[in-house]
């Protein structure tokens, strides 16, 4: 353990240095400053390709991924996390949770006498590039409180560790034995989430932190989802704003999907078709902000209320929903990869290294 600690500290120092050198020092949050600072959110993105991952991914796992609302966190790279050791990790986490229960933690979820089972599984078929580590799903099964004797065990807690389309330079700059799975999602009781996180922190010397979805990311999601309307109908574009009045005023602004699509198309810049398909599929941040501005102006014209005075809390369409508190639901498996890529980027961006 001692040796492990030392090697980690020395590795983390070299890791910090190599990371900095590969991506530039100062963090710029707005993403629009010129190229000196490297570390910023992309200002251009590829339009979401619909990936038919239903064929590549195990349907049970896919169902879990699309039906759950995940509470997101970022996690720093894991030291010596091996995808081959998942069975042993299940056992270790089980023991850790059992010890926690003995101490009286997480008793509100399932009573101390009930047996529970932890399973770690790999989700094959989600990675785009070879650099990305495979996604890992964690599930805790148990009989919930007040269940009858003959009721089968249900999943009471699920967790997700993933990395989609991370910056390859960054990945290659990581020291040996570090695995990057920066996006962590949890669904279930808070007590269990805390237990799982502390086990990870102890075993892999990593740090967790909350991942709020920023206003810019919410706008990106809005635009990216609306862009998909011709392929899969978004059914509605709903935004929830909170204005700082006394008492607070909540505004739910729902736009008809066809009209949202028309507005989106009207703000897209004409592109030079000679650039090829890749060029055509790119979306610039200016288009995203024009889209949002159009929606706000239409609102202002009617109500003389400036939505910029408030904050955007939630964006949802039939393809998924995202809340600024960091809760995310991806309802359509076709766009899962692209949405997770955006969130991976947010997680990497938010990491305090």
């Amino acid at each position: 353990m001692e040796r492990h600690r030392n090697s980690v500290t020395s590795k983390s120092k070299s890791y910090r240095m190599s990371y900095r050198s590969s991506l530039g020092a100062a963090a710029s949050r707005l993403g629009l400053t010129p190229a000196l600072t490297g570390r910023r959110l992309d200002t251009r993105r590829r339009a979401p390709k619909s990936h038919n991952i239903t064929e590549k991914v195990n349907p049970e796992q896919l169902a879990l991924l699309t039906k759950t609302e995940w509470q997101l966190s970022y996690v720093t790279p894991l030291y010596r996390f091996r995808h081959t050791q998942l069975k042993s990790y299940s056992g270790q986490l089980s023991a850790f949770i059992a010890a926690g229960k003995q101490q009286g933690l997480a008793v509100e979820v399932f009573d101390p006498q009930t047996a529970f089972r932890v399973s770690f599984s790999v989700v094959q078929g989600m990675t785009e590039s070879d650099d990305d580590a495979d996604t890992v799903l964690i599930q805790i099964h148990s009989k919930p409180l007040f269940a009858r004797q003959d009721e089968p065990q249900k999943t009471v807690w699920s967790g997700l560790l993933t990395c989609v389309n991370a910056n390859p330079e960054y990945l290659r700059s990581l020291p040996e034995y570090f695995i990057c799975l920066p996006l962590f999602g949890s669904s279930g009781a808070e007590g269990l989430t805390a237990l799982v996180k502390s086990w990870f922190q102890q075993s892999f010397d990593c740090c967790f932190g909350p991942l709020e979805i920023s206003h810019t990311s919410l706008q990106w999601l809005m635009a990216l989802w609306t862009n998909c309307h011709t392929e899969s109908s978004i059914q509605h574009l709903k935004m929830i704003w909170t204005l700082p009045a006394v008492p607070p005023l909540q505004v739910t602004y729902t736009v008809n999907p066809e009209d949202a699509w028309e507005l989106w198309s009207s703000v897209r810049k004409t592109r030079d078709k000679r650039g090829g398909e890749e060029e055509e599929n790119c979306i610039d941040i200016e288009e995203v902000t024009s889209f949002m501005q159009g929606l706000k102006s239409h609102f202002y014209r009617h109500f003389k209320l400036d939505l910029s005075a408030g904050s955007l809390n939630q964006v949802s369409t039939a393809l998924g929903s995202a809340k600024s508190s960091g809760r995310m639901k991806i309802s359509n498996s076709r766009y899962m990869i692209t949405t997770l890529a955006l969130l991976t980027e947010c997680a990497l961006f938010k990491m305090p290294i």
Partner: protein
Amino acid sequence: MDDSTKLFLQRFMRRIPSYMLRTTLEKWGRLTAAQQKSIDFTQSKWALTEALLTICEENKLAMKHLIELEMIYIMDNPNQGMWYVLQLLDPEDDAHSVELMQFKEQFKSHLKELVRHVSIKIKNHTDQAVWIRIAWGDAFSRPNHLKPTFGVHYLQTPYVFVTNLTSKQKPLLSQAVVLSTRYQAIKDANLSGRKLTAIRDLLMRKYQQVFPTKYPSPLAENNQTISNPHIVKEQAEPAANRLHMACKAFGGGALPQLQSAVYKLKTKFRDDPNKTMTEREEPFRCVVKFESTNLLESLRHCASSGIASTPVTPLLSCIPLKGRNYFVITDNDSGPSSQTHQPQN
């Protein structure tokens, strides 16, 4: 007492909060003084229910007595459930001289003609309000007392407030009300809310509407933050103007507690920088819902603090002005149109 009466009492006891029970029973007046004294109100609800059941059986009380009890409770606590407002139109010549007794008799007889099995109870409340409780049955079944409709009509006004009215029952109630009040038609007033007192006050302007014009400066804040005196001086007049216009639109003082307002917009998109959308013929369809614990206060605060530009847009000031909180806005008229809306039940 038969089973359905017992069930009714049990349901009622589950619903009423314990602290209200004593006063409601006293107002009901069907328990003797000794019986009232004998009830230990500190018991659990279940025990209280049993005690009350025994007493009611002793007094040989029936359903018709119990529904009085329920009505007393609802009349004292009207701010629950969802209330919708209906408005009577085109009064006949004698509409204004309809008296209480006349209305009661007429309403009962008209509704009984329309619905074979129905149980109607009418009580008048203190402030010109007539409360109506209707338990609906049909040609084959007896009235269902577990899901009664409540209606409140203020004589001398064209308004009827209803709660728990299904879409099948609505035309029947409407017909009976129209005939008994001597009007010709009835429509949705497009106003709904959880608090009966709030929507009533909003509609009948029973709150301080006009802001006293002699108010010289913005209201003093409770927490005096240290602010730059130059800014304060510069902003004093615009702030006073905003406050004045906000209060002109919504009223000064305490405002009725509305929870939400919904606007269905079907207007053309107009944002001059965006030429493509401006030239588009079709409307830009969207729905905007405003929600707050006290919507009118939030909106007034938006106007006075500058979040909303003043003068307040007619779309928002329409809420207190016309007493509505559901609007369908099209390009045809400059203000909100008065299209009808079916309240969801």
